[in-house]
């Protein structure tokens, strides 16, 4: 059983974080990023051509982390691979020791640095999750027997609790649960009231949810996310709080806000997924201030 699954199922408030693979071969940069926090999170997501920008393969970075004793969460999108490649990569990932898989549709290629690329989407994320479940039971998508099943995969998925309308997100989340998602990581949460409503609506499904926490670096970043990142909405009060803070104290304020959000979600869900976006060094302070 993966450490992530063990932590979540033991009922412990679970912390995960993530790294963005480099665009190139200077892999030490990605590994250095998580050095200060490698013992502070149970597992680390490794993104798959995040925002449709071409980078080093997720499974390769995951395998390196695994070799170093750091548990990865292998992110796999439907954007770049057809059903043969998705299943082959999953089997490959399993024999390299990877267990946690986060299944995603993937951003559209037009949003990234190869906008001319073929958007594959042979499978949607629901079919991908169903296929992972089927593979765990020893069959491929078409029902052919596998010679060795990846029985210990721990498949997860994503949801955006702040999305407008929330109703569609919950509808899709339920479809993902039915298709085999065993845990959820969320898009950034800033509005605790909205998150509570969301959790009240999904709690009945008894699927663990790790609330997304993105460190707010500046008022400009908050405004940028409000305008450009679908499913994220930073309330005005938080933006004003950042604006009223001196530039030199922004990091401290950022830590304070993140810690406050974590304390706010602590009794509502099963853990947090912290996305520091380059501010990894502040994660220990966030966790300490949140009492974790």
């Amino acid at each position: 059983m993966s450490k992530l699954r063990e932590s979540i199922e033991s009922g412990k408030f679970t912390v995960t974080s993530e790294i963005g693979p480099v665009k190139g071969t200077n892999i030490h940069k990605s590994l250095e990023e998580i050095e200060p926090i490698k013992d502070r999170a149970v597992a680390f997501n490794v993104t798959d051509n995040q925002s449709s920008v071409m980078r080093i393969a997720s499974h390769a970075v995951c395998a390196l982390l695994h070799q170093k004793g750091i548990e990865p969460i292998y992110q796999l999108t439907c954007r770049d691979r057809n059903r043969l490649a998705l299943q082959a990569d999953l089997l490959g990932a399993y024999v390299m020791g990877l267990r946690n898989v986060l299944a995603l549709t993937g951003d559209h290629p037009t949003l990234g640095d190869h906008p001319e690329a073929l958007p594959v989407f042979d499978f949607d994320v629901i079919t991908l999750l169903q296929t992972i479940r089927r593979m765990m039971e020893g069959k491929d998508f078409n029902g052919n027997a596998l010679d060795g099943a990846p029985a210990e995969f721990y498949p997860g998925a994503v949801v955006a609790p702040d999305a407008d309308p929330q109703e569609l997100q919950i509808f899709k989340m339920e479809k993902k649960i039915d298709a085999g998602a065993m845990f959820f990581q969320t898009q950034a949460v800033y509005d605790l009231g909205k998150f509570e409503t969301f959790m009240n609506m999904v709690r009945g499904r008894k699927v663990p949810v790790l609330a997304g926490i993105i460190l707010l670096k500046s008022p400009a970043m908050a405004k940028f996310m409000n305008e450009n990142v679908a499913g994220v909405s930073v309330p005005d009060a938080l933006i004003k709080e950042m604006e009223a803070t001196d530039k030199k104290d922004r990091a401290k304020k950022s830590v304070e806000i993140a810690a406050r959000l974590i304390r706010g979600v602590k009794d509502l869900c099963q853990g947090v997924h912290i996305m520091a976006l380059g501010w990894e060094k502040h994660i220990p302070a966030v966790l300490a201030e949140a009492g974790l």
Partner: protein
Amino acid sequence: MILSKAKPFEKVLESIKDAGSVFIVGCGGCPLGCQSGGEAEMGRLKESLAAGGKKVAGSVTIDFLCNKALVGTRLKRRIDDIRGADRILVMSCGIGVQAVGNMVDKPAVPVLDTVSAGGLQGLWPSTECEVEKDRDCGWAMIYTRVKELGRLSGLKEPIPPRDHRKRDLPAEMRGTPMAALELEPERRQP
């Protein structure tokens, strides 16, 4: 319907740079619907060609250039004009260009670009399209409509992925008259 728009005219001129005269074949089907074809567009094209120093040997608009039998009979009536031109300009999608190219022994040159109507990817956490900001998200529209109809449970069913073998004509349909009309002219090409 196949969506299309006019190619940049410099590109058209470039593709006929060795030709002195052209014959234009218009399509009265889809291009009419997306206003990339029709009488006005034909007129504009003729004016641009004249300004670009090209002679227009004649023109004809055929209802649907994808109807290959129709293309053959209609072009036959204009065979003298066609013989007098160096190139055939075709105002249609690629199917029409192929159909015209299969009927005449002169190069058929497209003057339109086909445009993808786009597909639907994952559910985007907004009512706005992921790819184009001022477009509505298709999934949000589907959800709203299906909800109004009281049939949300149907949307709960997983949608099986596409069978890509269906891109090719199935073996059992290859002997049908329709397939013969669609495919045979191409097979007769040297």
